[in-house]
């Protein structure tokens, strides 16, 4: 709410500067968006008196004016506004002035005529169209006759006021009024507010109840509903003091009736609505839910089709307003209005909120209904409004208020324990101190013994229900700055990461240590991408009921597809070397209410993993580079089972000849390989290698503990073997035979060369291994090794038709 500092001062003897006050409000009450003056950044703008005004000789619309600006001689200013005339008091931006939008005014010639400044509209002083009065839309603003030429215009226009723009939390609806602000500020400065209320003089002979009737059948819709009728009003411009209060609060002045309702809304937080009595379809008011598809035209001219949850005010069952939200076009107060029906109500906050939200009609009124209304001031506000309309528009207030429903304004009593207060806040407040705080808030208290304190909460603080709400009142008035700062006492339960959390963290560190950078992608994706690259495919992903964008409609069932989008994003920006990993959730619907959430690890690499170097050849990533990372990672986990990589040509997004399933014994835990060129093309990415692992499976897998093996003191002997085999013979096939026939002394087998090419017969390849033999307890003899080696070579020849080279 835009709170006028000058308005506050009418009711509070406050002597702190506006900025200091704002800081105090922020620390004690509600947050502050901004503190500003409408005159900020403006200068040399004064009152002018137009002495003479003649048409410009070379223009059909410009005027040449002689304007008294408080100097010895009037100055000449050329002005194009149609409403400029001799005798008017105007806003003059002098030579050297700074006006709105940081525009500087300089003297100059306009079509040959000297002009020593500019006559201004409020918009030119930075007023937005939302607050500048409508009456001056087509010309310059005219000041009151008593304005003194040469004076700064700011005091005349209330622009010297400081506005404290507060950001009110949903619970503090009471802070959406001057009344609420005055009460709260009085509490934290310990002041006595002198709030002024106007009482109404019913100066008409007629009874309101003879003119209108009001019925509310369902009090949940309108717990309070009241009407007054004011006759013989004369619609006109409001006095300047009223207009200033409105525009300083961000509300546009319209006419003396509408302005009064807005003034009351600001002062009490009580929205009012004024109807043109003679335009109403009937005079029996009622509030009800709308009918399905019932049409309604709001006063902004928009036509709405209503739904049954909407709420409308009707007369003779014809809708005349969206209750609490916006009035209807045909019944709004206009220049011709003679009789006003004035409505003060409390509408159901939830219904108003839903209606305003659905129709996108948030207004100063709906905002207040949504956050609650003080039942104690509905009538006060209605009476004061009627009185003001009577004073400003010359209306006659008819006798009585017509009431259809009335929510009682009740005090609430909450009993507190002093010990508990101090226990919750960590303070050592005395009973006197607590009583003092409630006295400042003007909440009556009664104490019993030295611990019990019963607080009476007035209806103006409808946000307070339970003891905890009062703890907050005590804490904020006492001051959070004064609260001690301690840490919870240490206890015997210790914290720490769980094994699962440690495992995930170690996984990330492994990936980073091996050159992959962590990515965090979106979990929500398209159905198609959600379904790709699954380790163990599930048919359909979980879909959102009402997605926001077509790119994010389903939860992912793999991580790779998101990483490929990241690769594409980089490649499109000429970043050719990408090595990313991601650890996170995938969501697998398995028939339950919610999908199974699995922690997965995936990586995508393209280009080179090592930057180009002046003394090293480029090393484009390939299958084995990435497999090395997976192997090392799985090795680090110490998995007890047998890890194997099984060629797999069944994954449609993967290269059929360059993809392997990753197995622990017989369990599928992931896959690795090259993205299928067709898929890569769809993603607009170059040759890219990926893997995805199910971390749940890895976490659950049996692990081996680290064990110490004494290092043999006896020398190791090595033998190299190169064999020519058919190309379909795999390394695994060879290794299996070597390990099976290697004998007790075979410690290690190392593949050191793979060759297939021109120098070999077609369909053949060469594999070369180093076999290391060692006896832990004795020195091996050449003879022992030769015998063991021969067994291996024989087996390779027999079982694989290998040719030993």
């Amino acid at each position, binding site marked *: 709410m835009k709170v006028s500092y000058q308005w506050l001062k009418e009711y509070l003897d406050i002597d702190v500067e506006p900025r200091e006050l704002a800081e105090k409000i922020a*620390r004690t009450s509600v947050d502050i968006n901004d503190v500003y003056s409408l005159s900020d950044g403006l200068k040399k703008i004064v009152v002018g008196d137009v002495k003479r005004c003649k048409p410009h000789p070379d223009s059909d619309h410009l005027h040449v004016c002689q304007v008294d600006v408080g100097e010895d001689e009037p100055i000449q200013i050329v002005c194009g506004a149609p409403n400029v005339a001799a005798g008017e008091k105007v806003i003059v931006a002098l030579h050297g002035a700074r006006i709105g939008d940081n525009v500087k005014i300089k003297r100059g010639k306009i079509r040959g005529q000297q002009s020593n400044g500019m006559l201004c509209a409020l918009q030119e002083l930075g007023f937005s169209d939302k607050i500048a009065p409508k009456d001056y839309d087509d010309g310059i603003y005219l000041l009151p006759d008593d304005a003194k030429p040469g004076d700064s215009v700011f005091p005349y226009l209330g622009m010297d006021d400081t506005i404290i723009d507060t950001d009110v939390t949903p619970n503090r609806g009471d802070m959406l009024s001057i009344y609420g602000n005055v009460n709260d500020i009085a509490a934290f400065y310990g002041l006595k507010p002198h709030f002024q209320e106007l009482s109404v003089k019913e100066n008409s002979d007629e009874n309101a109840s003879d003119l209108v009737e009001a019925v509310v059948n369902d009090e949940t819709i309108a717990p309070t509903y009241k009407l007054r009728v004011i006759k013989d009003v004369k619609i006109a411009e409001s006095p300047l003091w009223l207009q200033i209060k409105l525009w300083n609060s961000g509300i546009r002045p319209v006419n003396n009736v509408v302005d009064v309702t807005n003034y009351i809304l600001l002062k009490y937080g009580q929205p009012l609505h004024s109807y043109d009595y003679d335009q109403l379809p009937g005079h029996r008011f009622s509030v009800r839910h709308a009918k399905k598809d019932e049409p309604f035209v709001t006063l902004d001219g928009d036509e709405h089709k209503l739904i049954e949850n909407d709420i409308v005010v009707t007369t003779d069952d014809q809708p005349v307003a969206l209750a609490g939200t916006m009035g209807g076009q045909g019944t709004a107060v206009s220049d011709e209005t003679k009789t006003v029906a004035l409505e003060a109500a409390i509408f159901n906050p939830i219904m108003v909120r839903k209606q305003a939200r659905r129709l996108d009609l948030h207004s100063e009124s709906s905002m207040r209904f949504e956050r609650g209304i003080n039942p104690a001031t509905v009538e006060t506000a209605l009476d004061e409004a009627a009185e003001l309309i009577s004073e400003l528009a010359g209306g006659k207030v008819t006798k009585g208020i017509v009431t259809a429903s009335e929510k009682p304004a009740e005090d609430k009593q909450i009993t507190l324990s002093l010990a508990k207060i101090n226990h919750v806040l960590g303070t050592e407040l005395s009973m006197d101190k607590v009583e003092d705080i409630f006295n400042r808030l003007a909440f009556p208290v009664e104490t019993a013994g030295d611990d019990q304190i019963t607080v009476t909460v007035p209806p103006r603080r409808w946000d307070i229900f*339970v003891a905890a709400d009062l*703890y907050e009142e005590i804490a904020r008035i006492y001051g959070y*700055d004064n609260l001690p700062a301690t840490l919870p006492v240490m206890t015997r339960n210790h914290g720490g990461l769980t094994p699962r959390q440690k495992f995930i963290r170690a996984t990330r560190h492994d990936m980073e240590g091996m*050159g992959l950078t962590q990515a965090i992608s979106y979990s929500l994706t398209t159905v198609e991408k959600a379904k790709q690259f699954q380790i163990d495919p599930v048919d359909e992903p979980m879909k959102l009921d009402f997605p926001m964008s077509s790119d994010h409609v389903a939860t992912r069932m793999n991580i790779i597809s998101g990483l490929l989008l990241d690769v594409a994003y980089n490649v499109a920006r000429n970043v050719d070397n990408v090595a990313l990993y991601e650890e996170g959730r995938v969501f697998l619907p398995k028939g339950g209410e919610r999908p199974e959430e699995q922690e997965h690890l995936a990586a995508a690499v393209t280009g080179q993993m090592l930057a180009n170097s002046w003394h090293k050849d480029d090393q484009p990533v390939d299958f084995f580079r990435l497999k090395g990372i997976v192997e090392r990672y799985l090795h680090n986990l110490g998995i007890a089972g047998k890890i194997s990589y099984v060629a797999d040509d069944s994954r449609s997004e993967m290269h059929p000849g360059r993809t392997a399933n990753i197995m622990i014994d017989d369990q599928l835990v992931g896959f690795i390989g090259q993205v299928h060129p067709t898929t890569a093309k769809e993603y607009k990415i170059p040759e890219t290698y990926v893997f995805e692992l199910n971390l749940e499976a890895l976490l659950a897998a049996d692990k081996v503990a680290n064990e110490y093996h004494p290092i043999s003191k006896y020398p190791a002997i090595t033998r190299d073997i190169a064999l020519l085999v058919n190309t379909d013979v795999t390394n695994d096939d060879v290794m299996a035979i070597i390990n099976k026939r290697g004998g007790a002394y075979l410690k290690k087998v190392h593949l050191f060369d793979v060759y297939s090419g021109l120098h070999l017969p077609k369909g053949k390849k060469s594999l070369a291994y180093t076999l290391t033999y060692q006896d832990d307890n004795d020195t091996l003899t050449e003879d022992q090794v030769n015998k063991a080696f021969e067994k291996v070579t024989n087996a390779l020849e027999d079982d694989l038709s290998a040719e030993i080279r």
Partner: protein
Amino acid sequence: MGLKDKLTQLRDEGMAEIRNSKDLQKINEVRVKMLGKKGPITSVLRGMKELSAEERPVVGKFANKVRDELTTAIEDRRAELEQAELDAQLAEEKLDVTLPGTPVAQGQSHVIQQIIDQVVDLFVSMGYEVAVGDEVEQEVYNFEKLNLPKDHPARDMQDTFYVTPTVLMRTQTSPMQARMLEKHDFSQGPLKMISPGKVYRRDTDDATHSHQFNQIEGMVVGKHITMADLKGTLEVVAQSLFGDKLQVRLRPSYFPFTEPSVEADITCFNCMGKGCAICKHTGWIEVLGAGMVHPNVLKMSGVDPEEYGGFAFGLGPDRFAMLKYGVDDIRNFYQNDVRFLNQFDEKG
């Protein structure tokens, strides 16, 4: 010429030859020539038997002295030459040490992960446990049990991705509050937990909004937990993440699941409170929301609010990262531009 004179002559000639040896091969030749079995000193010594018994030890001693002198001279010269050869080799091996080193493959964690890890480590060091929840939540845990009944206005502030009327993408990590309260055995002491993770809001992505972001929720509930403890804890968090010279300011705020509720601001680390564009000229930056756990939340999770109480707080790693590094577009965090990710490679 007597033997002694001959030895003296041999010594002088040998010394000259040693001095003139320019390489290791030459000095080796000199050694063999002078000191070898067929060398002149050996033959001189062989002539000793001609000498008288008095002369023999004198000449013998002198001969040994000459041999030792020559041996030492040869070794010194050899060491000199070896050193010279090594120096020459080292001079040859000189590198341009300003050439760049060979790159190694080293990745790093995402900037948001870094913030999360920092916060997690901090709380773990204070004895908190880490509770990670599901990202697809039941509505009852995401809202109802947090004192956010249907039609609560605060639900409007959190536009939600629903899957079914009872299942949604969690809008906050707070559901773990209720789940942990239900699970915790208070006879073992207070519950001290934090819960980091991804959350989702039905928002259109732009520079300051993301439909996916991260939150870290924290809660302590026990018999003797006070609002002063909350204030102290928030000070520790803010100062350890942003610097210990910064002040913490608490302001009243509103969250349905806490009462009293506060927002914590820290001194703007950019201008140290003087006012700048980052803090919108207030000198303060809002970093987290917190409060004392609402009695309704405790009650709904089966904890007696008369006996137990505590505090809860929530902070946004995305926002922290944006503040700390001046990142001006939240989408940067999820596009994974390598040039962006690589900027946050401090390992300290």
